[in-house]
């Protein structure tokens, strides 16, 4: 079997169920692939791993991938798994946040490590200054969890619909006490989990074939996961080496993940969404993330081959 290494963006969880299912159910074996799945973590930059030759394919978010491309690491999107963004800003009503106008003067929790680009674009759109002595809002680099919100150290924190939001709920706050700002609703949604390879991989015919087979089996895995969310969550749990994930949380996450994925043309990059993402990142005068229209940042060829 051909060997292939996949680097995830984050720790083993239902966010990546499709790949684990494909491996567990033997879908990769069917296409004669031996796939190694490397979990990520807070200090793992998928783009760095692939640049260093540590993986053949990585799961990453498009803003980060485009920014990396500008830095001279030529990442190319070969398949876009999540069609919608799951990112939200979750705020406490009792700290006085009901609309984006209320952000002024508040402390907002944001993830960095390349995940801050959508947020920065949004704030740019809202004409809020986030840095310096005269900043309109105080930005806090949020750690791994939602504690700053629970402890009222921040008025808002970043959450994913499928993960941190539920930690807030588990933390004792009710949906009625919260205001949520999904990026989709604010018109600043950028594409999230997609599959990226180095440009060089696309120069080699054998590699292209391998990637197509990988996409094919992975999408089969995702399809299965969306149809059998509970079983998929259990497969994820079995693959979690930390033993820290809970069943309740993973099942819920899997259900939420399913909502972000279009099963029609599963894995195909929607060029409209791509253009929207690029425009959001290019908008404003700050040029925070990318400074010019990227070229060759995606290809549909692999996905199309995978349909055969």
């Amino acid at each position: 079997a051909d060997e292939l290494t996949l680097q995830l963006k984050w720790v083993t969880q239902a966010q990546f169920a499709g790949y684990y299912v494909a491996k567990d159910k033997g879908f990769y074996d069917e296409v004669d692939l031996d796939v190694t799945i490397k979990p990520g973590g807070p200090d793992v930059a998928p783009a760095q791993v692939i640049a260093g030759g540590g993986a053949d394919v990585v799961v990453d978010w498009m803003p980060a991938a485009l920014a990396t491309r500008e830095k001279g690491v030529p990442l190319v999107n070969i398949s876009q798994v999540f069609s919608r963004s799951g990112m939200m800003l979750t705020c406490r009503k009792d700290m006085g946040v009901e609309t984006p106008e209320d952000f002024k003067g508040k402390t907002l929790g944001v993830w960095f490590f390349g995940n801050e680009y959508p947020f920065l674009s949004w704030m740019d759109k809202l004409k809020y200054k986030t840095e310096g002595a005269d900043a309109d809002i105080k930005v806090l680099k949020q750690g791994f969890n939602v504690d700053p919100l629970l402890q009222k150290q921040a008025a808002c924190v970043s959450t994913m619909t499928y993960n941190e939001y539920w930690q807030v709920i588990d933390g004792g706050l009710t949906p009625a006490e919260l205001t949520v700002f999904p990026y989709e609703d604010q018109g600043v949604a950028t594409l999230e989990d997609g599959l990226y390879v180095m440009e060089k991989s696309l120069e080699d015919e054998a590699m292209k074939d391998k990637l197509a087979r990988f996409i094919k089996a992975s999408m089969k895995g995702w399809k299965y996961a969306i149809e059998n969310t509970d079983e998929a969550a259990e497969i994820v749990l079995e693959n979690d080496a930390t033993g820290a994930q809970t069943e309740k949380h993973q099942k819920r996450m899997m259900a939420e993940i399913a909502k972000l994925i279009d099963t029609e043309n599963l894995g195909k990059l929607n060029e409209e969404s791509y253009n929207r993402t690029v425009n959001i990142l290019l908008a404003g005068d700050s040029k925070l993330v990318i400074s010019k229209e990227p070229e060759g940042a995606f290809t549909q060829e692999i996905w199309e081959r995978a349909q055969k």
Partner: protein
Amino acid sequence: MKKHDYVLIEFLFLTVVSFAVPVGQVEGVSVYWWFDSAALILVLASLGIGFFHLVRGRDGLAAGLLVALGTVLGTLAPLQLIGSIETGEILNLGYRVFLVAPGLWIYVIALGLLAWRAMTLLSKVADGNRLIALAIPALFGVWLLYLWQVITTGLGIPSVLLPSPGQIGDAISNNGSTLYADFYQTVVKSVLSGFAFGCGSGFLVAVLVDRVPFMQRGLLPLGSLVSAVPIVGIAPIMVMWFGFDWESKAAVIVVMTFFPMLINTLAGLQATSHIEKDLMRSYAASYWQTLLFLRLPNAMPFIFNALKINSTLAMIGAIVAEFFGTPIVGMGFRISTEVGRMNVDIVWATIAVAAVVGSLFYGILALLERRVTFWHASYRRAK
């Protein structure tokens, strides 16, 4: 009896060998040293100086400086070449990259030998000469940086993995204000306050507990318990307790520095010999007089030991703690954020600032120690 200087002979041999093999490629065609006349002259200069010294074989300052000059001239040759011709990319070629420009790498190894000879020559005359005593480690450091530069650029290592010192230097000069803001947040706010508070409280508790042996026996074993608690575990807890600004970083530093100071001060206070204490007793000196006149001065070497250990702990502690939640400024924030943004040059620029600040901090404490404990056996010579 005259011994052969094998290091120099080896240098000459390797350099000559480097002439026989390619030093790189231009459009796929192997080229040799004489492709670039500037590089050729530099190599020949180093070769000449090496040969001259081998024949003359004399020690002394002049010889040391001459060989050092030869090394410096020699090091410019590879830099000159790497900018103008192809030397291979490690990610494409793997270990075969060394076959693209074998002469270059052989010469770099040869230069290592020449640099070594320069340092040994200088070491011999360094006693009593402060300038040279400082120059030797500086030369060594420059050599390390040089190797780093040649390897990253010569082997085409992607800068997102490891930028070259040149790129790091550029990043430092281009991001001065950011780096200063980070320095202010991390060092001035977190490190200094945490260090002062941690060391201060460790010292005070030691002085208090010293009177109660019972407490000492109870506290000391806990010291080894706490020293084994990883900072990556304390940091999130402190962020939870003290908020995300510098206070939580200072708290992490306090936890890290408290016990080393406590343990060292206690050991220092107890390091007085029987006879010294008996002397105080024979004067019917009070507890505080004994402390002031005898035990504290005597404990100074121990206390400085703890201060030095703690200075490196404090820097690392503050930076690591910033990984776990911070306002968007600070060296730890910068490092963790810019890695994700693929700005690895800024990451290394920040690391460089941290290393320089940390070493300075340490150096200042070491100087102060020399001043305060001048009387200690480790500082006085003869008699």
